[in-house]
Each structure stands twice: as structure tokens, then as C-alpha cells.
């Protein structure tokens, strides 16, 4: 036992010293931080786009400009809600719900329930200034002032010498140098690129499409509306324009057909909320909260964590065994300890490094949530709380260790048979593919945790740790839990026993990796 410890400690110490280990540990939090920081930075640094709107029909310009202003207001609203959630005095929803000042809560819940309606409400109430007055008493004293996002789309005047009432084709030809970036607009004394030109020809109404009439081909020569932009990826502007023009058009249609548009609007805003209830929860607690949903999905997070960590561990185990084999350290080791001690020492040492990585990840995750408060991290924090407080932890610990023992045993045997990583790759291939299966199926299983696929996969030992972890939150039948655990434990014993045999003979092997027949012979070998 002392020897196993000694080997495990050396493996651990050496592993911790490698670059790969630290990359593994740091990569996860770095990706996490990068995602959040970049999201914020990108959102803040989205450039201001200048567009030219030419409405020869004279009917839609106002609506389009309104739409663009509304889009801006929507962004302010979203940012503001996020700002309030972050900076309110007490961020516990249960407590604040009881607060007298429920209006701000109403706003927050409206936004999450129906953004369009909330936006109307917001604009009707007077927008940001009103909301700020409303929210200020509820904000923390140290809250930073709210900074409204910049406008993203700003109308630009038509360059001189272009007649807005000219032929559409001629106008576009004249504007082409600006559209392609060959010339720049001067807006408020600053040079800027022209992002888009929206051209609404005089007889645009002739191209309106109605049900029952065969649609006409739309091209730039027709009287249809035109959106010119060299940027094909930023579709917010064309979408906003298309939406508003259509809604203006529909309002006109309502009027034409004698329907009160205001009534339609009110009808559209009528809604019946659905309470999502969970029959398995205790009485009085049936309402499905965000936390419950998270709880349902948390196993997927655990499965993923398990997958990443196992991948890392088995790879290290493999390359490390091959290193010892290729430079024949293994012989010295075997002259000092038994193959079983060596194998167990390795399993233990690498296993502890795997656990260290997971703990480091969880710790950085926690620190991140604590020191980077924002709406998104609040969400993550909730996820974290659910993960830690739920009964999923014991499942995770058990299935992680079981999965590790199972796969590590197999990869150790593979490592003992090969002299170079290159040789190992061909033997590793099938195992890697098997390891991918739980990853591919994890979302399906989360959606139907007690369905036939989940149940069948649970009984296949190589998938048991992943699949049962995946199903852990859905209270699988006792038969599945106990039965698969027995099968799993027996398989682990079998795998470790067999790979012990292969390991003992494989580690001293030189030359080509063995053929299947030879491996079978090794398995049957006795002593």
C-alpha cells in the first residue's frame, strides 16, 4: 500500500508540473471569462451605423424611423432591466416580490414574459426617465449610474447633388461609391461609412402581396422596396424595417377593411399565462421555478464535466504509460514494485489530479460568480447553487469514480501495449468513439430520462456512468439504479482484472502493437 501511495504521489506531483495540467485548469475559467467579457465588450462596441432612407411614396419613412427608434428603446429597456436586476437593494426575488414597490418588478417580469407589450408599456410611460425615477429608491446606494446604450442606427442626409425623387436606379447608381465604401459620408463633421440605403419607390404599394394572389418576382427593377447594404451579416436593420413596414401596412389594411387597429392591438396583447407545475414536487411547491428547470438540466452539466475530466485523465494516463514504456523505466519499476501496485498507483495518482482539476474548475467558477456580478452570472450562480445543493453530488461522485476506474483501466491496458502515441492512436480510436456516444446523447436523455434509449444505455457498462448521471434528476426506477450499479461494479472489477493481466504482459512488450489474437492470448494467460 505504501508503494501505491509513493507511485501515486509521484504521478500526481509530475502531472501537476506539466503544462498540460495547468492549461486544462486555466482553460475553462479563461473561456468562461472570455465569453462574458467579450459579450459585454462586443455589445458596447457595436459601431454606429449610418443609413439613408429615401421614401418616394411618402407613406413609410415615419414608420421606419419610429421602428429604428423603438429598436433603440428596446435595447435601453433590456439594458435597464439587467441594470436593475444587478443593482437593486435585495436581489432575492422572493423578498422583493413582497416589497411595496411592485411596479419595477412588474416591469422586469413583463420583459421576460412579453417583450413587445412591455416595450409599449415602457414607451407609453415615458421610457427611461420615468423608469429611472421609479427604480432609483430601490437601487443600492453604491450602484453606478445607468449608462444607456448608444444608438446603433442613425439616419444620414443624402449627399449633395442627388435628387431623392429621381429614378430609383439612378439614385442607387449615384450612391454606389458610398455603399461600396469608396466614398465616405460626413456626418457632424466626422467621416463615416454608409451602412445601408433604404429606398421606397413611389409606387411601392403595387408590390404588396396578398393571400390568394400569386406573388410577383421581387427585383430591383420592380417598384418594390429596396434595401442596399454590403454587410450581409448584420440583419437587425433590414429586419426592423421589414417588421415595421409590414405592421404599418397591416394597420392600413385594418383601416381599409373597417377594423379598429387599436382593438387588434389590444387583442394581440391579450394573453393567458400557463402555470408550469411539477406533480412530483411537494404540495404547495408544485409551481415550476427556474431553479427546478435548472435542476432538470443540471445532470447534463455533470455529464459534460465528467466527460471533459475523464478525457483529460485517460489521455494523460495513456501518454504517461507510454513514456515509461518507451524509455524502459517500467523495467526498473517492476523490479521494485508489483505490476498491480504500479497500476493502482497510477490510477490513484492520475485520478487525484483529475479531481484536482474539477475542484479547481468549481472554485474558479464560484469566484467568477462572486466577483463578476451581472445578470448572466446571477443565472450561473443559481445553476451553481442548484448543482451543489441538490442530491446530484453523491451521484456525480460515484459515477465519476466509477467511470474513471472503468475507462482508466482500459486506457492503461492500451498504453501498456504500445510503444509510441502514434501506435496507441489506432487502438484508442474505438474507445474515443464510444466515449463520444454519451456526449451526443446527453440532451436527448435529459429530455426523456426514463425513455427506452436512456434505459437501454444505462445497462451498457461503458455508458452507465454517463447515462445514469444524466438521468439522476428524473428519479429513475429503483431497478435501474440498483441493477446498473451492480453491473457497473462487476464490470469495473472485470476490466481492472483483465487490464491488470494485459498490463503485466504488455508493459514489457516491445515491437509492433499486438494483433487481436495476441491480446486474447494475453487475457487467457494465467499467473
Amino acid at each position, binding site marked *: 500500500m505504501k508503494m501505491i501511495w509513493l507511485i501515486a504521489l509521484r504521478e500526481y506531483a509530475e502531472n501537476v508540473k506539466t503544462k498540460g495540467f495547468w492549461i486544462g485548469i486555466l482553460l475553462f475559467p479563461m473561456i468562461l471569462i472570455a465569453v462574458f467579457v467579450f459579450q459585454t465588450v462586443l455589445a458596447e462596441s457595436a459601431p454606429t451605423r449610418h443609413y439613408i432612407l429615401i421614401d418616394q411614396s411618402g407613406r413609410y419613412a415615419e414608420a421606419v424611423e419610429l421602428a429604428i427608434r423603438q429598436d433603440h428603446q428596446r435595447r435601453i429597456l433590456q439594458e435597464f432591466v439587467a441594470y436593475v436586476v444587478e443593482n437593486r437593494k435585495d436581489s432575492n426575488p422572493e423578498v422583493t416580490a413582497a416589497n411595496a414597490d411592485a411596479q419595477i418588478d412588474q416591469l422586469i417580469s413583463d420583459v421576460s414574459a412579453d417583450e413587445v407589450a412591455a416595450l409599449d408599456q415602457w414607451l407609453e410611460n415615458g421610457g427611461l426617465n420615468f423608469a429611472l425615477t421609479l427604480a432609483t429608491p430601490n437601487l443600492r446606494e453604491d450602484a453606478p449610474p445607468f449608462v444607456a446604450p448608444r444608438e446603433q442606427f442613425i439616419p444620414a442626409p443624402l449627399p449633395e447633388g442627388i435628387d431623392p425623387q429621381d429614378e430609383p436606379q439612378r439614385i442607387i447608381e449615384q450612391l454606389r461609391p458610398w455603399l461600396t465604401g469608396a466614398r465616405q459620408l460626413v456626418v457632424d463633421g466626422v467621416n463615416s461609412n454608409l451602412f445601408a440605403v433604404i429606398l421606397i419607390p413611389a409606387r411601392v404599394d403595387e408590390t404588396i402581396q396578398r393571400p390568394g394572389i400569386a406573388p410577383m418576382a421581387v427585383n430591383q427593377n420592380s417598384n418594390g422596396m429596396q434595401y442596399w447594404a454590403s454587410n450581409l451579416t448584420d440583419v437587425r436593420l433590414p429586419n426592423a424595417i421589414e417588421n415595421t413596414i409590414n405592421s404599418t401596412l397591416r394597420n392600413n389594411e385594418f383601416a381599409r377593411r373597417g377594423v379598429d387597429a387599436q382593438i387588434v392591438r389590444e387583442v394581440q396583447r391579450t394573453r393567458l399565462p400557463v402555470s408550469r407545475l411539477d406533480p412530483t414536487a411537494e404540495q404547495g411547491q408544485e409551481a415550476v421555478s427556474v431553479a427546478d428547470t435548472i435542476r432538470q438540466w443540471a445532470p447534463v452539466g455533470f455529464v459534460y464535466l465528467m466527460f471533459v475530466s475523464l478525457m483529460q485523465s485517460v489521455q494523460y494516463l495513456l501518454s504517461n504509460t507510454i513514456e515509461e514504456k518507451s524509455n524502459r523505466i517500467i523495467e526498473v519499476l517492476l523490479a521494485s514494485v508489483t505490476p498491480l501496485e504500479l497500476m493502482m498507483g497510477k490510477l490513484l495518482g492520475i485520478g487525484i489530479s483529475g479531481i484536482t482539476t474539477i475542484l479547481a474548475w468549481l472554485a474558479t467558477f464560484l469566484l467568477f460568480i462572486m466577483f463578476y456580478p451581472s445578470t448572466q452570472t446571477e443565472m450561473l450562480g443559481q445553476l451553481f447553487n442548484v448543482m451543489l445543493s441538490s442530491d446530484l453530488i453523491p451521484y456525480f461522485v460515484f459515477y465519476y469514480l466509477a467511470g474513471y476506474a472503468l475507462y482508466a483501466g482500459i486506457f492503461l491496458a492500451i498504453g501498456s501495449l504500445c510503444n509510441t502515441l502514434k501506435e496507441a492512436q489506432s487502438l484508442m480510436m474505438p474507445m474515443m468513439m464510444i466515449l463520444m456516444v454519451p456526449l451526443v446523447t446527453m440532451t436527448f436523455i435529459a429530455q426523456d430520462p426514463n425513455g427506452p434509449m436512456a434505459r437501454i444505455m444505462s445497462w451498457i457498462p461503458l455508458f452507465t456512468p454517463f447515462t445514469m448521471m444524466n438521468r439522476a434528476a428524473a428519479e429513475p426506477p429503483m431497478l435501474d439504479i440498483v441493477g446498473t450499479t451492480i453491473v457497473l461494479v462487476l464490470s469495473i472489477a472485470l476490466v481492472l482484472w483483465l487490464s491488470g493481466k494485459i498490463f503485466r504482459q504488455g508493459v*514489457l512488450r516491445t515491437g509492433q502493437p499486438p494483433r487481436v489474437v495476441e491480446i486474447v492470448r494475453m487475457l487467457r494467460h494465467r499467473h
Partner: protein
Amino acid sequence: MQENVLELSKVCKKYGAFTAVDDMSFAIPKGAIYGFLGPNGAGKTTTIRMILDILKPDSGSIKILGETSALNVRKRIGYLPEEKGLYKKMKAWAIISYFAMLKGMEKKAARQRAYELLEQYGLKDFAEARVESLSKGMGQKVQVLSAVAHRPELVILDEPFSGLDPVNQEVLEQLINDMSAAGQTVIFSTHIMQHAERLCSRMLLIAKGRKIFDGTLDQARAIIPRRVILECQGDIAAVLHTDGIIGVTEKTPGDISDANGTRHWEIQIQEHASPQLILQRCFENGIPLTRFDYTQPSLHDVFVHLVGNDAREHSFR
């Protein structure tokens, strides 16, 4: 009677149809420096691995330090494998103390011993260096030290001299002699005869998996006749009837004119025959000698004599 640390009797090992070791029997007394000699592929490494119970013999028995398996006494054995390698990222002292600890030494003692050995054998300045930064020879020295740090009763070194420069070969010879002086038994394999000649009290010669010779250096030399080497211009027919001469071979290089007509002979004589008698005959017959040489056969000659054909054949396979 001296106690044997190692006894092999009728040990065989086959790999498929290939017989690596065949009917091997020998015994090694305590405190000996014992050489395993043999051409490449003779079965030295396989024999050593069986002694260490890393490989199981197909038949025969091995008794090591009074036990049937080296695994039961592995803490009393030190082993340096044929192919050298160490953990590249570890420091020299750490690797020595790690292997010593695997052999049962306490952490503190192992560390102290590591520094002591590194200083004693000229690696003091490299104690803190990572193995990957050491030269091949230095790395090999570190490995030898890591094999013997726990003061094993029986040290088995497989090709310890290969890859070392002459200075370090001497350092290693010193180490082996030191261990022998301390009562440790040392077995080492080599195909360089000079080391065996200088170090070994006994030796085992293996070829094609079979024991060819087992004994002391003197016994080995006695295997091939002593030789007298003569060079002269003219013929030596007159001396050839002297007593004790077993055979004569003329070894003149192909073209006599190159050597100014000098001819070269090798005369094999009986073990107790006197070379003086031949010299006397030469003078009596007025043979103008340019060279008269009487040498002990070297171990190299014995080796070539015993396995020469086999070794050549082997290299052509």
C-alpha cells in the same frame, strides 16, 4: 563453503519457436563481481529478466537470495536495465531518492543518500538539474546510482558501460569495485571484454542461449592455447619440431613484398611448454628474428574463439 546469492538450474525460455535461453545453470557466490558475456542476442537480457522474475522461465528453477522469486526480495536487489531511460522532467536527486524509496528507504535517508552519491561520483553540480538537461552519459550515471542507492545485496547491471566515455567507464568500474568491497554481489553484462577482464572474479559466457563457459578469468584463458608470435625473413621450418608445439599457422599478409619479405607465424604451444625453448631453437638455427612475442590470450581471443562463428552467423540472420 561459500554461500551462493544466485543459483539457476536448467532454466529454459522460448519465444514461440525461438529459444532465447536453453538449459542454463550456474551459481554466483556472495561478494563476487560476475560478468555475463556474450554476443548480441545471446540471451543475456532474457536471463537477467528471468532472474528478476520480470519474465517467467518456461522450465527450470531460480533461487535468489534464498528465495524462489526475486519479487520476494526485490528490496535487496538493485537493477539497471539494458535500455536506459529516466523520467525526463524529474531532478537528478529526486529520481535517485524516488527509486530508493520504492526499494523501501525512508524519505529523508533516501534524499540524503542521493546527494551523497551524486557528490561521490562527480555529479554534485547536477543534483538539481532535470534529467532532460543532462547529457546521455550523465543521465546513465544517474540511472546507475538510482539502481544502487538503497545498498542492495545483489546488484544486476545490464550493459552498464554502453554509451559512457572512457573517463566515466572508469568511474563506473570504481563504483563496481567499491560495491564489491562493501560485500555486495555485482552481476553485469557486457560485450566489451576489457571491462570483464579488469573487473570480474568470475564470468559466464553465453551464446545462442546456451552456457559456453563459466569460471574464473584464468580458467577462461586456459581454454585457448598460449601463443608465440614470430616474424622473420626466411623460413622457420627448423624450429617446428620443438616439444610442446601444438600447431603453427602462417599469418603473413597477402603480399610478402609489402613487408620486405617478412613472414609472420603464430605458434600454439601446450600450457606448460616453455616459450624459451622456441627462442633457443631460433638462435641455434640462425633464424633472423624481427619479432618474438609471447602473450597470454586475451579474453577477447577466448570470446572470439568460443563464439566467433556463432556471432557472425547471428549478424547475418
